[in-house]
């Protein structure tokens, strides 16, 4: 019953400006901190690809089911984000420990020979993020105070 109301001059001008802005819509990365590797850059993929985030994909349970290699990828390539935090939690669940000085993840390869209050000495697997692979380290001393 109200019928249409013609736009006033002021509104027509506003519409013109809005329309111009419509062709410069904000980009998703505009409102995010700079991401060194994976910025928020949605790109169009074929419609039969998965389009929406997987169900529960932002939960610890989901991350605990990811492979170790994937967790390392997330940890090193998505720093400062919730994904990195969830990956770290999942790695710890798999008995990996982050060494704050070497900034690498270590896991016991076998029962350490020496264990005391400050350190344990033995053979470890560590993840070398520069050479991007797991390595074994004999006789390595794992100092607790560097334990994250």
């Amino acid at each position: 019953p109200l019928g249409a109301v013609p736009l006033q001059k002021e509104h027509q001008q506003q519409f013109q400006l809005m329309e111009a802005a419509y062709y410069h819509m904000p980009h998703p990365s505009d409102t995010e901190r700079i991401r060194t590797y994976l910025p928020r850059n949605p790109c169009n993929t074929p419609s039969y690809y998965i389009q929406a985030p997987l169900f529960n994909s932002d939960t610890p349970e989901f991350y605990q089911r990811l492979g170790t290699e994937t967790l390392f990828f997330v940890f090193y390539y998505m720093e400062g984000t919730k994904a990195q935090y969830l990956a770290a939690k999942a790695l710890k669940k798999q008995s990996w420990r982050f060494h704050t000085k070497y900034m690498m993840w270590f896991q016991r390869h076998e029962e350490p020979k020496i264990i005391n209050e400050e350190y344990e000495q033995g053979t470890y697997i560590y993840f070398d993020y520069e050479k991007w692979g797991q390595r074994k380290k004999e006789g390595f001393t794992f100092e607790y105070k560097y334990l994250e």
Partner: protein
Amino acid sequence: YEDPPGLVEKTDFLLREWINIYNSQHQGRDSTKAFSIFVHQMNVHGILKTDDLITRFFRLSTQLCVETVYRALLDKSNANMTLIRPKCYHTLDAFVRLVSLLVKHSGDANNTTTKIHLLNKVLGIVAGCLLQDHDTRTVDFQQMPYQRIFTMLFLELNAPEPILEAINLHVLTAYCHTFHILRPSKAAGFCYAWLELISHRVFIGRMLATTPQQKCWSLYAQLLVDLFRYLAPFLRNAELAKPVTMLYKGTLRVLLVLLHDFPEFLCDYYYGFCDVIPPNCIQMRNLILSAFPRTMRLPDPFIPNLKVDMLPEISYAPRINTNISLTISPAQFKKDLDSYLKARAPVTFLSELRSNLQISNEPGVRYNISLMNALVLYVGTQAIAYIRNKGLTPSMSTIAHSAHMDIFQNLTVDLDTEGRYLFFNAMANQLRYPNSHTHYFSCTFLYLFAEANTEVIQEQITRNPTYKFWQHQFVHCAPEIEKLFESVARSCF
């Protein structure tokens, strides 16, 4: 502006210095170390000597950064936007970092006044530059640089640090004032960035969730009112052009997040929102009206013999954060209204009611909708108090034969279809989750239907079968109308 000679060059030089420092690799993430050295440089160049020079420095810096972005965005040789944008971010983020460090370190550690003063100054300067740019470039205006500055500065100032926590409420207030100044009706070319700024997840989180005692709710509500006011003339006419559809969809998304996460917020401020949303904008209004407190368990409206009167909630009045009586004007009208409600005098009140509400003869804009809304809610709340004072509760019998019902019946009969539509909408805006207003107005609606002397009034109120709707002539006035009513009725029942 008459900047002192050499200031532009000096600012340009210093800004470049800082951007290089900020983006140099060996600085890594913590540029605080370089900051103190840089401040010394600013001092050496006399930038910090007077308040005026500081103001000029920020204005020139803002303009220099924005110009850099315009050049990059308009650089036709490199059309790859995903490469251009990060470059712009490096410039803008560096400037923001400088501002945030200056804010954090201005004055001594626990003196919040100087920090807030500086923040307000910078926000004001950036807003001023935006508005000037918007008015100068008009259809060539770019939102991105300003959106980026506001967003990154907000993220910087909301980092979990004790100094920042101490000034957070001031930061939020300053931002809300700035966003109000930059509201879409003032800067239509910035409307998409503006909506994204006020609905950024960190901004919503701070405004509506983490700040205690809902201190920012009214500020946030004001921003939403700014948005609805801007949209109103475009939504008023049902054909939506693409730019309006985009903004409308974005607004619905924000409202859905608010409905899901902060229904109490929508409950508290529904009146102000519905007051500025066009009455024919049913979907958006329903989103707001459908909010109910999370502590409430809603009854299933389809239970056949639902006894509304038995619900305990219908005796509680909803919280309304608008002072309705203030919005009823002019004062003489308010005075007459109160005296009529008290003693049903002056007798001329009813006959003059329509002329008080009518503001023009132009179809579609004949009535003062805000006044209509306020009148309906004010009379309704007075009626509920009046019935309670007599130790009764609202029902079909207790709401009748009172000055309040006189007014509603007069409006029903005396207004034309447009006016009646607005009047019924004002009442429909009160039909929400179980509360005393919902109860009173639903009774009033049904009473008006039963008392209606013409079918056109009944048709505008309800189509519920218990009122023998299908026997009315207007249902059968044309085969396609009959078909339409049947399909709608089937979908409802």
